[in-house]
């Protein structure tokens, strides 16, 4: 495997509050990293730094190892941000994921609409293409934002708590779709639920002011304590999951 990009001694802050301190990490191509950690630990901030939305106070993100361009990054923010009463259709939202490769005068032609249809088909949204957002369920909405993030055919996909509103019965289906996408792109996914996602991710990164990379999908309470990552591992009865063994 080769490195897609690397984070080099990044310190990031909002005004004077330092959120990330001296974070260094190399992200491998086609990795599927679950980013876990306590609230306020800097998970979302890390994504913003990678996206170029937040300039680090010191250090930098080096995109050169895998020749990654900023417009090759797909982003799915926490769903609460979007205004679902805004007059926009599902298709419009999916199309917006393709603005990255266009200028401010970008037009959505037949080619773009065809591509958007393919993405909607893949994520089971085709029947909803002309629906307004306020007519969708939480899980459907989440898939719309996922479709937006991947419609620009990104090489890196950043997901911030993508399954918060997904119905438990659709959760496995949702992660299966991500796994499929992982064949074509590297994924970094923020989640509060390390137990559930461990069945799908390839590795973990624990972000708590700084970062600890754990190159396996099996992570134990002990690891988390070691990393200073005070989160609880949750096991769900009805959802496919792996039972984690303790490292010796």
């Amino acid at each position: 495997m080769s490195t897609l990009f690397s984070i080099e001694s990044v310190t990031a802050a909002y005004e004077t509050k330092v959120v990330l301190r001296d974070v260094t990490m190399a992200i491998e191509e086609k990795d599927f990293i679950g980013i876990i950690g306590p609230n306020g630990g800097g998970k979302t901030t890390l994504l913003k730094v990678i996206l170029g939305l937040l300039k680090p106070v010191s250090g930098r993100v080096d995109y050169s190892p895998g020749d990654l361009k900023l417009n090759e990054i797909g982003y799915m923010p926490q769903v609460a941000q979007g205004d679902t009463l805004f007059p926009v259709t599902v298709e419009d939202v999916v199309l917006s994921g393709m603005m990255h490769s266009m200028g401010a005068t970008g037009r959505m032609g037949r080619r773009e609409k065809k591509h958007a249809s393919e993405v909607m088909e893949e994520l089971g949204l085709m029947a909803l293409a002309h629906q307004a957002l306020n007519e969708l369920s939480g899980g459907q909405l989440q898939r719309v934002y996922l479709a937006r993030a991947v419609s620009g055919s990104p090489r890196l996909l950043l997901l911030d708590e993508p399954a918060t509103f997904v119905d438990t019965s659709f959760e496995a289906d949702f992660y299966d779709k991500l796994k499929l996408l992982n064949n074509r792109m590297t994924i970094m996914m923020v989640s509060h639920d390390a137990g559930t996602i461990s069945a799908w991710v390839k590795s973990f990164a624990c972000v708590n002011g700084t970062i600890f990379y754990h190159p396996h999908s099996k992570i134990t309470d002990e690891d988390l304590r070691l990393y200073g990552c005070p989160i609880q591992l949750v096991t769900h009865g009805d959802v496919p999951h792996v039972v984690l063994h303790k490292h010796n």
Partner: protein
Amino acid sequence: MENIFEYSFVIRSLLGALFASITAGLAGTYIVSRRLVFLSGGITHASFGGIGLGYYLGINPVVGAAVFGLGSALGMEYMSARGRMREDSAIGILWALGMAVGIIFIYLTPGYAPNLMSYLFGSILTVTNGDLVALGIISVVLIIYTALFYRTLLYISFDENYARTFTRHVDLFKYISVGLTGLAIVLNIRMAGVIMIIALLTIPANIIMLFTREYLRIIILSTVVSFVGISGGFAISWFTNLPTGATIVTVLVLFWVVARLAKSLRRTNRIEKMKYPL
């Protein structure tokens, strides 16, 4: 001679209605979808300060209103972007301040302010050729701006944070949009009046949003609804001698009530059909 006057008056009214409709369709859809209705009310009333200043200085009050309208629009966008003050409070203060400044200047101006009432309540009779030209220009600028940057503007309005991932100019676009909106509002004051203009901008877009959620359709159809409502309002106010702005607003609200009823009837029909499929 009288015929010619009446003829040109009709033409001017229709032109005024057309331009007002275009601005209501474009700026109105933007305002309603971005939830800037209260902000727009603030801009309108703040610009009354400029009207008063215009009277006091003996310049065209519309020029004063344009300066105040543009200034308050950009100022409020700036303040809300910095997050330094609660936005609704800032708007409330600016709203009252504009009216206060306007009233003080008009009080200080010697003599009688002849068209003052027309600025408050709107009147097609006082609209000058210059006003029409200015409205025409802002309409054309709004059309070109929206057509050129349609997707970018749509996505910035919908989800600004996401838009920042594909354009570095989110703030610039927001300032231009809000600035053009402010100008469009101010230039409609002569016709619709400070007090009524907010209805002109909000009702048509809200009527169309009852039936569709497609942004472009809302722009086009709310322009059409505005044109019918405004020219209808003109005609009624002409024949009945009622104040123009108030008549237009009443007509538009009636349209909204009818649309609302039509929608709920359609919904009941659909539910009935679902209950009894055959």
